[in-house]
C-alpha cells in the first residue's frame, strides 16, 4: 500500500489528521531482505481511571477512539499501546481493577493482535507486578513481515532506567540481526534527553541508542509526552504519539513543566495514529471522533 493511497482513503472517511512522512529506513533500498508493506496503529497514554478538568470526557475517550479505529476501512495488521494504559493509584486492588476494566474496553477492538507496553503509571509503583499479571512481559520482541520489533521497558524501574540486564538482553537480540535489517523500537518514555528538566528522558537511554546506532534502519515510537513530536538522534528517528487523556505542554525551556493546557476539543489534542511501513514511514494522526 502506498502512503498517498492511504492518506486519500482516510480523507474519504473524514477522519484524516496530519500526515507525516519520514525517511524511515534510509538503508532499506539497499537491503536484500524482502519485506511486505503493512500498517499498524499506535495508541498511547490512555490513563484509564483518570478524572479531572484536563479531560471532562475521560470516561468515554478511549471507547470513542476504539470505535474510530474499528472504523478504519483497511484494518491495521496489529495495534500497539505504548504505555500508561491506566492512571496510577497507590491502591494495588484499584490498580488491578483499572487494568481489568481497561482490558475489557480494548477487547472491543476488532483487531485481535494487540501488543501492550507499560508506562510509569502502570508499573513504577510495583515494579510492573500488576502489569505482568494482566498483559505479560514488559520487554519482548516480535517480527512482522520482515520488520523486527523490540519493546523496551523504561518504567518498571521507578528511576526510569532500562537497567543493565535489559540492556544486555537488547545487545544479545541485536547481535542476531544484520545491520541493514529493519528494526522498530517501541517504548514509553523518550530514549533521548528531550527535556531533562521535565524528566522527559530515560536515565540510561543513551546506552540503548548506542547499541542501536550501528543498525541502519531503526525507528522508535514512544508516548509519555502526550503530543506528536519528531526527533533524530543521528540516523535514528524518534516519533512521540498523542495521548487519549489530555495534552501536555510543548517541550520548552521553562525550569519546570507547565500544567496541561486548558481542555479545548476544537484543537483535537487527543488521538491515535496509523503508521504505514514501506521504504518510508507515513504517520497519519487520527483524532478521536464521536462514537
Amino acid at each position: 500500500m502506498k502512503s498517498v493511497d492511504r492518506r486519500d482513503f482516510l480523507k474519504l472517511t473524514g477522519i484524516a489528521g496530519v500526515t507525516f512522512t519520514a525517511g524511515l529506513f534510509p538503508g532499506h533500498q539497499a537491503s536484500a531482505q524482502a519485506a511486505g508493506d503493512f500498517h499498524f496503529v499506535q495508541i498511547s497514554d490512555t490513563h484509564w481511571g483518570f478524572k479531572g478538568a484536563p479531560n471532562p470526557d475521560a470516561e468515554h475517550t478511549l471507547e470513542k477512539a476504539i470505535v474510530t479505529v474499528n472504523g478504519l476501512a483497511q484494518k491495521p495488521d496489529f495495534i500497539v499501546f505504548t504505555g500508561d494504559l491506566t492512571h496510577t493509584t497507590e491502591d494495588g486492588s484499584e490498580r488491578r481493577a483499572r487494568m481489568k476494566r481497561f482490558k475489557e474496553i480494548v477487547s472491543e477492538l476488532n483487531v485481535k493482535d494487540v501488543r501492550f507496553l507499560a508506562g510509569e503509571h502502570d508499573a513504577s509503583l510495583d515494579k510492573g507486578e500488576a502489569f505482568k499479571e494482566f498483559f505479560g512481559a514488559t520487554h519482548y520482541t516480535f517480527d512482522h513481515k520482515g520488520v523486527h520489533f523490540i519493546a523496551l521497558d523504561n518504567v518498571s524501574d521507578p528511576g526510569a532506567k532500562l537497567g543493565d540486564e535489559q540492556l544486555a538482553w537488547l545487545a544479545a537480540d541485536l547481535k542476531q540481526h544484520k545491520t541493514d535489517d529493519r528494526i522498530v523500537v517501541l517504548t514509553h518514555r523518550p530514549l533521548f534527553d528531550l527535556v531533562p528538566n521535565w524528566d522527559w528522558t530515560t536515565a540510561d537511554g543513551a546506552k540503548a541508542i548506542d547499541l542501536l546506532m550501528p543498525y541502519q534502519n531503526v525507528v522508535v515510537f514512544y508516548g509519555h509526552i502526550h503530543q506528536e513530536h519528531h526527533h533524530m538522534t543521528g540516523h535514528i528517528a524518534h516519533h512521540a504519539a498523542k495521548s487519549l487523556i489530555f495534552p501536555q505542554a510543548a517541550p520548552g525551556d521553562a525550569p519546570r513543566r507547565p500544567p496541561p493546557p486548558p481542555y479545548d476539543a476544537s484543537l483535537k489534542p487527543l488521538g491515535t495514529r496509523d503508521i504505514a511501513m514501506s521504504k518510508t514511514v507515513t504517520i497519519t494522526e487520527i483524532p478521536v471522533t464521536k462514537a
Partner: protein
Amino acid sequence: MNRRLFIALLAGSSAIGGAVRLAAQSKNEVEIMAMKFSFTPETVKVKRGEQVTLLVTSIDRIHGFKMPAFGVRTDIVPGETTRVTITPDKVGQFAFFCDVFCGDGHEDTAGTLVVEG
C-alpha cells in the same frame, strides 16, 4: 547548626514566600525536605560562586533528587540525610525534581534553585 536552624525558620516564614536566601558565608547549608508531592522549601536562593550544601531528607518514601543543570542526581532515603554540595557557576532559575516515580502528583515533587549574581 545555628545557621541551619535559622534557615529552617526562614523556610517556614510566609513573609518570604517559602524562599530561602543565603548570606555570603564560607559554609552554607540548606535543608530541603521531600514528601509526596512537594519539596520544602520549594524555592532555594543562592549566590553564584558560593559553595552551598543541600541537606535533603524524605519523610515518607524513597524519592529522587535531580538537578540536571548542575549534574546532580541522588536517591533520598527516609531516615537519612543526603548531602549535595554545589558551587553554582551561572545565574538563573534551575529545576530540581524527584525522578523516582512516587505516585499521582509525582510531577509536582519539584522545586527551583534560584542563583543570583
